[in-house]
């Protein structure tokens, strides 16, 4: 294998391992604030991977929205709910081992199973239009996606307004 390719593969594997560890920390950490920060770390690593895979626009969105905004939303939500009592924490620790003991086994089985799979090249659609500029694609052929995004955002705003409406 080409040494440059080998180095790039190694860097990708290290980044993906960091992302997986961030994901594991998100689901395993007891304190929700720490879990939200672990999620932000996962988003940052995903952003670096996106840059490496030549997707800079998506990486910028991932960094600003997922690592920034969603973390703020999570921490705000966590600050609005009551912290767990000592009894609840003890119960959580007691049940955590019982609930998560299967996870390493499942991960190992899925990882081993997938590593034995063979990869076939993706079929190329004949005559498919290839647009390489994302701006042209987003504002041209995929403009309907933007309309959908606006409608989803409006639905989200409406949902939050309804949820936080004060009773008269």
């Amino acid at each position: 294998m080409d040494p440059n390719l080998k180095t790039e593969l190694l860097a990708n594997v290290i980044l993906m391992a960091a992302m997986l560890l961030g994901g594991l920390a998100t689901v395993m950490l007891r304190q929700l604030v720490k879990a939200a920060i672990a999620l932000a770390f996962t988003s940052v690593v995903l952003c670096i991977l996106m840059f490496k895979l030549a997707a800079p626009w998506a990486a910028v969105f991932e960094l600003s929205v997922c690592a920034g905004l969603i973390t703020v939303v999570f921490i705000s939500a966590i600050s609005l709910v009551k912290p767990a009592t000592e009894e609840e924490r003890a119960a959580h620790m007691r049940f955590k081992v019982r609930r998560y003991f299967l996870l390493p086994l499942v991960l190992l089985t899925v990882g081993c199973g997938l590593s034995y799979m063979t990869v076939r090249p993706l079929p190329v659609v004949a005559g498919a239009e290839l647009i390489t500029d994302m701006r042209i694609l987003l504002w041209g052929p995929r403009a309907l996606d933007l309309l959908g995004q606006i409608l989803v955002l409006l639905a989200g705003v409406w949902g939050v307004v309804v949820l936080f409406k004060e009773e008269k």
Partner: protein
Amino acid sequence: MNLITLIMPFGIFVALLAVVGLFCLIVTRDMLRILLALEIVTKAVTLLLVVGGAVSGQMALAQTLVITLIVIEVVVIVVGAGIVIAVFKHTGTLDVRRLRNLKG
């Protein structure tokens, strides 16, 4: 970068990340942690879309899909967090087992 170098490690890690999120969705009882697990699964899907774009050579299309996915993800999380806070104000707990008002 050739196909095998890109697909195999990324495919395996995407699947493992999705498994971590799905496992947490199955075993957790905390509503906020359910949202965190949903985020983990979405991260796996986002990475899969980008890898798909890199492999097929249609990175522009993959990026537009990722941006759409991120917008939907944010709205789902914000509305989900709002529902969690509303439920907490109503019931005083984040445990999904205590939400039995609609149980038949």
